[in-house]
């Protein structure tokens, strides 16, 4: 039979009040010191090359250099890799006379990062064409692995743009293994794998040139329609990001033009639900007074025009898509101001000077 326990009470205090206060303060200090040590370890490995973020970091650096050396007013293409593989800014420049830079990068970097990059590259008088991937309208603000690698390896300055809460979230999301890998790479730079995408295949405008039609290898897994087929959440952080970007462009005398990404045509895009998604995007840009070039259908192609994902065109698709974009761009661009002044004699000079 169970014996009743004696009524219990905690034992008397084992230390004076001040002792516990010191203990509590030490706990807070321990937390602070660990956090500081963690931030220090992350800062120490900034820029260390690792296999995962190599390509994106190199592409970012190259494009930033091109943008910095291209005189304004210029045209900038800002979006995820549908622009990298699907817009030939070299052709835009040749056809319109506007110096053009393809600033498009990996879409997984997220809307905040891509727009931050655009802010750094754009100057007064520039025109930004923004054919964003549909998923970029549907963001939660979560840090992707690609973005993490990009910031740690390529652009630590990006951290300065964050508020305290996103900064802490980012810092704490870095895994211990990643920091160790970075510190090791800093001490002894690793031999990075040479397969996969290569930054050296970009041309002088930042366009991809290795997406040759005969090398296309689109898998069934990559043949898919957008996840925004049923609409975009009003809670998405992208709306706010784009609204702020629009204001920034207005304040800095930069013209903003929206468009649609190149993607595979699926019959599902004829359904009413997709029509609602498109209307959401159109109405949003209308509310911001941003012209939208074309319709999604203008940039949908048969899957045979795609290289390796549903957003990456082959060079043939790239040519078609760029020509269609140029048609839509012309009424908005007009003649380049410098060309207008020089009577059009300087056409192409910008390109050869670079």
């Amino acid at each position, binding site marked *: 039979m169970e014996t009743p326990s004696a009524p219990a009470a905690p034992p008397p205090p084992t230390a004076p009040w001040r002792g516990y206060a010191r203990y509590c303060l*030490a706990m807070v200090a*321990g937390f602070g010191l660990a956090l500081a040590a963690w931030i220090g370890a992350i800062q120490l490995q900034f820029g260390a090359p690792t296999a995962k973020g190599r390509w994106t970091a190199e592409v970012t650096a190259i494009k930033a250099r091109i943008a910095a050396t291209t005189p304004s007013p210029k045209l900038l293409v800002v979006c995820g890799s549908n622009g990298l593989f699907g817009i030939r800014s070299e052709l835009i420049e040749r056809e319109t006379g506007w110096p053009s830079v393809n600033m498009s990068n990996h879409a997984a970097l997220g809307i905040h990062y891509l727009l931050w990059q655009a802010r750094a590259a754009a100057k007064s008088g520039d025109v930004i064409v923004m054919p964003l991937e549909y998923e970029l309208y549907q963001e939660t603000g979560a840090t992707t692995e690609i973005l993490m690698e990009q910031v740690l390896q390529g652009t630590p300055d990006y951290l300065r743009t964050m508020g305290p809460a996103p900064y802490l979230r980012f810092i704490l999301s870095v895994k211990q293994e990643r920091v160790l890998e970075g510190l090791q790479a800093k001490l002894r730079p690793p031999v990075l794998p040479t397969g996969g995408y290569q930054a050296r295949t970009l041309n002088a405008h930042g366009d991809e040139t290795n997406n040759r039609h005969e090398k296309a290898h689109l898998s069934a897994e990559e043949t898919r329609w957008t996840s925004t087929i049923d609409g975009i959440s009003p809670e998405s952080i992208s709306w706010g990001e784009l609204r702020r970007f629009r204001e920034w462009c207005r304040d800095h005398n930069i013209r903003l033009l929206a468009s649609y990404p190149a993607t595979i045509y699926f019959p599902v895009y004829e359904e009413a639900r997709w029509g609602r998604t498109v209307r959401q995007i159109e109405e949003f840009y209308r509310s911001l007074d941003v012209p939208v070039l074309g319709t999604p259908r203008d940039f949908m192609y048969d899957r045979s025009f795609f290289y390796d994902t549903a957003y990456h065109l082959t060079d043939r698709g790239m040519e078609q898509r760029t020509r269609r974009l140029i048609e839509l761009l012309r009424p908005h661009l007009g003649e380049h101001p410098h060309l207008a002044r020089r009577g059009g004699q300087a056409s192409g000079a910008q390109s050869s000077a670079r």
Partner: protein
Amino acid sequence: MLFNDYVFIGAFLPITLLGFHLVGGRGRQRPAAFWLVLASLVFYGWWNPLYVPLLLGSILFNYLLGQRLATTEPGSSAKALLVTGISANLLLLGYFKYTGFLVETWNGVAGTAWAAPKLILPLGISFFTFIQIGYLMDAARRETEDGGFLDYCLFITFFPHLIAGPLLSHREMLPQFSKSRLQLEPDNLMIGLTIFLAGLFQKVLLADSISVFVEPVFHAAATGGSMSTAQAWAGALAYTLQLYFDFAGYSDMAIGLARMFGILFPANFNSPYRAVNISDFWRRWHITLSEWIRTRVFMKMTGRRATRARLYGATLVSMTLCGLWHGASWNFIFWGALHGLYLVIYYNWRALPLARRVAPLFDGWWGPLLARGLTFLCVVVGWVFFRARDWNAALALLGAMAGRGAGTGAALNLDSKAAFLWIAALLSLAWFAPNVQQWMAPVRPTLDPVDEPARRPWKPAVLTGLALGALLFLVVKGYFTLAPTQFLYFNF
């Protein structure tokens, strides 16, 4: 709301502590108790407010019945009241927890196709039902004290134990509510916080970290996937450790939370994987449930002078019920029965003359080590049934552990080397490091006396505070890098 949830840590707990201090300061006992009941109901209702009336109804029913039992002369009417009370509690538990299982079993046996009702199991129902059945049984023996409805409500709803134990006894709790000072004290707050953080550390950094090696193996076992013998062992051992650090971590968090309010809980774990036999294991694992089953089921069945056959029968039945308590599935029932069988074998072995003859052979250091290893192995085999999706999956995994039907496991995406490094580290902690009760022994962390206090026990020193702060940082970091998981015992 879970104890490791940022809403709990960042909002609920600070508000409850502040309210407790403001309402209950200067010895205002009743308002303090009322505040704690209110906060506990908010805590419970956060998950699903619809079940708060169910909890309150159960409390009111059992309190009134307990009052009646305590004033009824022992005899047939008291017995009838007690049977009514226990039946009502078991019916409520059975309805929510076992209806689907019974319908499915019936369908399987009779070939019918009855639709099982889709019921959501109210959180903690297994715990608050058993606590109240214990209360009624003691009330029928006139062993309860009437501290009033408010104290009874606090005894059942007090949020640190409400949804996953420990299983409390009114004898341990009600005197504390009436005799202790329900008041915020700096020493209780800091001691409680330390125990809570130690539990949080076990849950977030140990249990959640090793959990990544569990699912792939058990999933492969359930779906006929290939796995190597090493992977099968890695999965089974990883789960053995995950379950321990998850539940022991939870229990420590509960003990720490209660201590912040000046309340002591009983210990629920005492380094169970150091057990040198299966009976020892059950004195160390989920101690409050083992004790409940021993005193409320086993001892009722054996009586004072039981024959050996009755003793063994009672052991098997008690342990099978223990398995059934964990969940409505044949796996749990088998797991319970298996432990019953282990106990019967152990009792039989102990009674054999041979056991006494060979005992001196194991007097050296290797004796306890061998006993611990053998007990641990038996426990691991039991956990395979406990965790596996079904009987076949458990057999497949055990087969792979024994080298039968094991493949290369190349498709499993499980790094056996990393898994075994984690397992070795966590096993060392479970086997050799002092547990939280032993570490905190000088400040009496639980109601029970601590055997073998740690050689270097806790004290509120600056260095300890710094180390705990750094550990807290790792826990907070874990929220951002580890996949969030529930406490495993919330399922039961």
